């Protein structure tokens, strides 16, 4: 567990360094994520690796780590109440639009490229 966490922190550190050195407008942990992804692809890691085990354990409780930031909402309750309409409508509209556009674009492009790999009709058939 500690070995895996050490790897995760090391990749975050690497990401942070890259972001600082190159001055790209991306959060350090996200750059670290891309580095870890490349590393996992190159090493063909399976589920027994320490990084994978520690990372999966963290991801199971990902929600918990949002709480300190989320509790800050008590400081912004007035903002939410004042702007309830723009917040609510904007979230609903952008969510529906994005969902539909992603689905249609992906399905449409697949048809356009002429290589439909349609596994959707198999829905429900067991593994």
């Amino acid at each position, binding site marked *: 567990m500690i070995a895996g966490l050490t790897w995760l922190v090391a990749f975050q550190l690497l990401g942070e360094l890259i972001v600082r050195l190159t001055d790209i407008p991306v959060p350090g942990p996200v750059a670290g994520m891309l580095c870890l992804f490349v590393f*996992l692809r190159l090493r063909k890691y399976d589920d027994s690796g320490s990084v994978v085990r520690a990372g999966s354990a*963290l991801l199971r409780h*990902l929600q918990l*780590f949002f709480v300190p930031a989320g509790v800050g909402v008590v*400081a912004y309750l007035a903002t939410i109440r004042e702007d309830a309409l723009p917040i609510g409508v904007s979230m609903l509209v952008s*969510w529906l639009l994005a969902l539909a556009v992603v689905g249609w674009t992906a399905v449409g492009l697949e048809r356009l*490229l002429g290589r439909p790999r349609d*596994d959707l009709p198999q829905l429900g058939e067991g593994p």
Partner: protein
Amino acid sequence: VTDTVLDVLRSPLGLLAITLGGYQLGRWLQARTGGHALAQPVLVTIVVAGVAITLLDVDYADYRSGTELIAFWLGPATVALAIPLHRQADRLKGFVVPLLVAITVGAAVSIVSGALVARALGADELLEKTLATKAATTPVAIAVADAAGGIPPLAAVFPRPRRGRRLPRHRRVPDAAGGRGRGRLRRAVDGADRARDQRAPAGARAADVLITSRVAAFPLGATAHALA
């Protein structure tokens, strides 16, 4: 004695205990209600901790620094998002181009429509920037809102479909006939729901599109900020 108890509760240890306790309560409620949509552990925890610091008269800044131990792990957990991406990378072979294009278009639509609708309805620039992060997965949204000059706590609580969301019990059993007679998109979304929750192979690619799109939406948010 009361003062001593209150002091201990206001200490970082007390705030950590309240937060972890609230999270356990949330998980218990979720299990008890069979995964009810409102019984989100994160929602319960935020309500418990929010009420607690209001009653204890603790400033948010003090709460934030007291619970730094929890918030710290958001960084390594974000790095760990590479793991589900890696696991699904093989399944995505041959689908990379449609995927990347769909993600880019979808993220752009989400960012632009979110910000424009908010502006049309009279939101200020700060709120607009916060809403623009909505397409990204929560840890990324918090970081992007921070970098782009939005409000990180709001980016954290604005609802979005979550990874690993539990379905109500009656929807958990795969239904062979479920796909017939319905729209393809609808089936894809249903399949995505099921695949996320049960790691079922069917429809898993649609889940990949949805999950990956949230992970990948960040560069667009960052670019939008750079252009603005």
